[in-house]
């Protein structure tokens, strides 16, 4: 089950976040910082799954942007990993060559894209 979805850039700025379980706003900031830190500290040789507290992070990097999905341990890592890519492909289609700038400019579009897209996988 997906617990949260994040788009964070290398500077640690969150571009999009979506939580499927209630998390306090101030805790979110902390969580997001820790999450991006653990992603940034990893090299290409390392796998894309990180065990973090009682859940797993699955991440992919697109240019300077990280997409991170937090899941519980019953989730299929590979399916989520590829699902992230599918999401990016959809955005790419919509914006014809999507970039980080699109994400911050058209936040609302991203929200609705992610909503309609991610729903089936919840």
């Amino acid at each position, binding site marked *: 089950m997906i617990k949260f979805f994040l788009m964070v850039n290398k500077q640690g700025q969150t571009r999009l976040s979506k939580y499927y379980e209630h998390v306090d706003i101030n805790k979110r900031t902390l969580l997001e910082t820790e999450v991006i830190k653990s992603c940034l500290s990893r090299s290409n040789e390392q*796998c894309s*799954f990180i*065990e973090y507290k*009682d859940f797993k992070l699955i991440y992919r990097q697109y240019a300077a942007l990280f997409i991170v999905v937090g899941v519980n341990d019953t989730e299929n890592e590979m399916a989520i990993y590829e699902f992230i890519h*599918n999401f990016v492909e959809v955005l790419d289609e*919509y914006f014809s060559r999507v970039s980080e700038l699109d994400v911050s400019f*058209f936040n609302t579009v991203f929200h609705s894209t992610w909503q309609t897209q991610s*729903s089936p996988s919840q």
Partner: protein
Amino acid sequence: MPAVSKGDGMRGLAVFISDIRNCKSKEAEIKRINKELANIRSKFKGDKALDGYSKKKYVCKLLFIFLLGHDIDFGHMEAVNLLSSNKYTEKQIGYLFISVLVNSNSELIRLINNAIKNDLASRNPTFMCLALHCIANVGSREMGEAFAADIPRILVAGDSMDSVKQSAALCLLRLYKASPDLVPMGEWTARVVHLLNDQHMGVVTAAVSLITCLCKKNPDDFKTCISLAVSRLSRIVSSASTDLQDYTYYFVPAPWLSVKLLRLLQCYPPPEDAAVKGRLVECLETVLNKAQEPPKSKKVQHSNAKNAILFETISLIIHYDSEPNLLVRACNQLGQFLQHRETNLRYLALESMCTLASSEFSHEAVKTHIDTVINALKTERDVSVRQRAADLLYAMCDRSNAKQIVSEMLRYLETADYAIREEIVLKVAILAEKYAVDYSWYVDTILNLIRIAGDYVSEEVWYRVLQIVTNRDDVQGYAAKTVFEALQAPACHENMVKVGGYILGEFGNLIAGDPRSSPPVQFSLLHSKFHLCSVATRALLLSTYIKFINLFPETKATIQGVLRAGSQLRNADVELQQRAVEYLTLSSVASTDVLATVLEEMPPFPERESSILAKLKRKKGPGAGSALDDGRRDPSSNDINGGVEPTPSNVSTPSPSADLLGLRAAPPPAAPPVPASAGNLLVDVFDGPAAQPSLGPTPEEAFLSELEPPAPESPMALLADPAPAADPGPEDIGPPIPEADELLNKFVCKNNGVLFENQLLQIGVKSEFRQNLGRMYLFYGNKTSVQFQNFSPNVVHPGDLQTQLAVQTKRVAAQVDGGAQVQQVLNIECLRDFLTPPLLSVRFRYGGAPQSLTLKLPVTINKFFQPTEMAAQDFFQRWKQLSLPQQEAQKIFKANHPMDAEVTKAKLLGFGSALLDNVDPNPENFVGAGIIQTKALQVGCLLRLEPNAQAQMYRLTLRTSKEPVSRHLCELLAQQF
């Protein structure tokens, strides 16, 4: 979906956004925003009624400002107005705004709910979807109360559009997860299952998610989904790569749906219907076959999607654990991945293989990959992959490869990450003991462990090595020699000093013949470490010294000198001072004979041996040896306050082992001098210091409370005592919750899982049991975002249980942060047979309100089962020996679960007995044997389970040497089928 895109006319918005982007400083941005806010406010307040377009534009700007992190305190009303617009884009922005900025303003909620209701009833699919998305996104309890009853109707209505059905399923799922009690079960559930047959793949995907969640609570209501899921899966798996059009992802048909279907099937045991099962096995085989085919595309997306399905398939095969052929194939497939160049695949393969290793069918197949896994441990650059490799090595370890695996893990320990060292240490210690063939290897391993990672070696580990060394005289000389060598290292860990001190004090004489380790050398070696050690270790060393005086009279003068030194006799620490004074007096007053008796070598630790073997040893040893065991608990000889003359019990039992043996454990047979009321008196001891003063100790109580080891002496007591002291009396705790028995039953045949869960709290259990000892980890998860205060979980022994089962709890933090998890460790010792489980009482304050909860701790007598293999004739012989009517318990009962031989087998093994093949002439029947290990006695158990598939009935017969045990086991086991 019509979209709000760049060119959609909202030029004002685009201009505003680019203005913000062009701001050079934070101040400029705030200024620009404030200007815009003022503008919007005036527009909203102005006399001129705004048209839909302007409203939408301004609400959009507000939303953007909010998302930038600024507070918005107006505009809600305008957003709600947009909801009733007939234009999609306006409605959508309205919904988006309230989804993001909803607050519990009662006035607005009523209006919003009204608008949603209208849209749901509108029969316009786009509007219905928007409303459903909004309900799901807000997902609050209020939303649930308002709409939970309507959504199932929309979901199964014949005339709903596909997209509406899809949204309705997901919306319902969301509401169900948030507040399951609000979603009424009813006849719609049967119709939801049939959505698996829907033409539209999106509907199927959404429905699978919903059913997977619902069926966990009510598996029987959704049973029919198995065959539907299998046939759907089979159609997808066998379809050509282009059949599913939009739902084909890089030539893989519907990968995510396949994964979900496979996951749904994991909620159930293997299908009973042979045809369905055959079809499913065919599917699984197809997936495995496809993995071997050349890829249809070189793109990594293709193989990722394919592998996602493959991994889920393997999970299902492992879940069924009944198809040896498939299990072995899965293992081979994972074996290929172990060497794959993609790190992700190596990681996942190691993870899956770990579960495969525990299946009896694939254990051997997993073992063939040992070299690859060891190589992974050595060469992987990613720590998480290495950790998976270490886990897998632990899982695949057995007698044949233990030496190799343990040495590899030890080597890994030197470079392992700090976070996982303790875990590795425990694993090495467990494996070394479990599979030790010769004990010198075991001793070497543990000493290495202390040398490499002393900080991470917990007390239990080094207590254990002492117990084993004490109990096995063939290894004592070797242990003394090894530990002596280890102590010569210039810097050695304090745990090493403790082990060294204890072993040399007991067995130093065995190596004293060698001039390099003559008594004075041994002494000065130990004493050179003395000053660097903590109080507890120094106390232990003082005991070693007095033992040296007995072992080696020639060291007497030197040691007395040390004891006499001001730093000892006037030590600020009471414990050290007392020991120095007592030992000094003992050594000068007592005759050699008395000294020899008092400082006798420790008797073997009883709980680790079969009773016959212990008897044999005691016979062989000097007469005094046997008396010691009782003497240790004999109150009359234990007079600490007297202080002049330490007694055998005090001296020959350095602190840690005293505690290990469990002063809290005294079983009646081992303490004949204690009157029958011992149970009650011991209760007082457990209540600890806090309870004592009020008791006004009578002489006997005083004696018994003396048995409590002095606090500074024992680090373990420090940890163990506070919890019992805080223990409320049994009258203080509430009765167990109604489901307690049901929850307990879930754990009769398994050791790990979620014990309890409600809106606030989740309690997970992980436990392991060996012989009469057990360790349980309880994980308390705070599911809320609010801190729990005064959090105190306690274990309570109702009735006589105190004398039957000893549970030591460690205290946990009194605060549990929102979303955090705390762990509590329980050490359990079974003293004698028991029938009722201990209670776990959890209390805390949540948002000011006190909460309390009483559960039954999943510790049942069968946890202390040791499986026993025996041949048919032995079995029958024993069966006949136990033929008294009260030794047998029998029960005939109806099957509550599908009658599957493999599942039954797994349950019986989980129950703890060995399964004996070829004993019963009827191959359908199950026969098992085992011994229940308690500290006081062992109870042999034989069992027989006769399923009758036609009648859906079972007959269960148990024979044990103790009547209540037979009956109790029979009750426990009967509920599992």
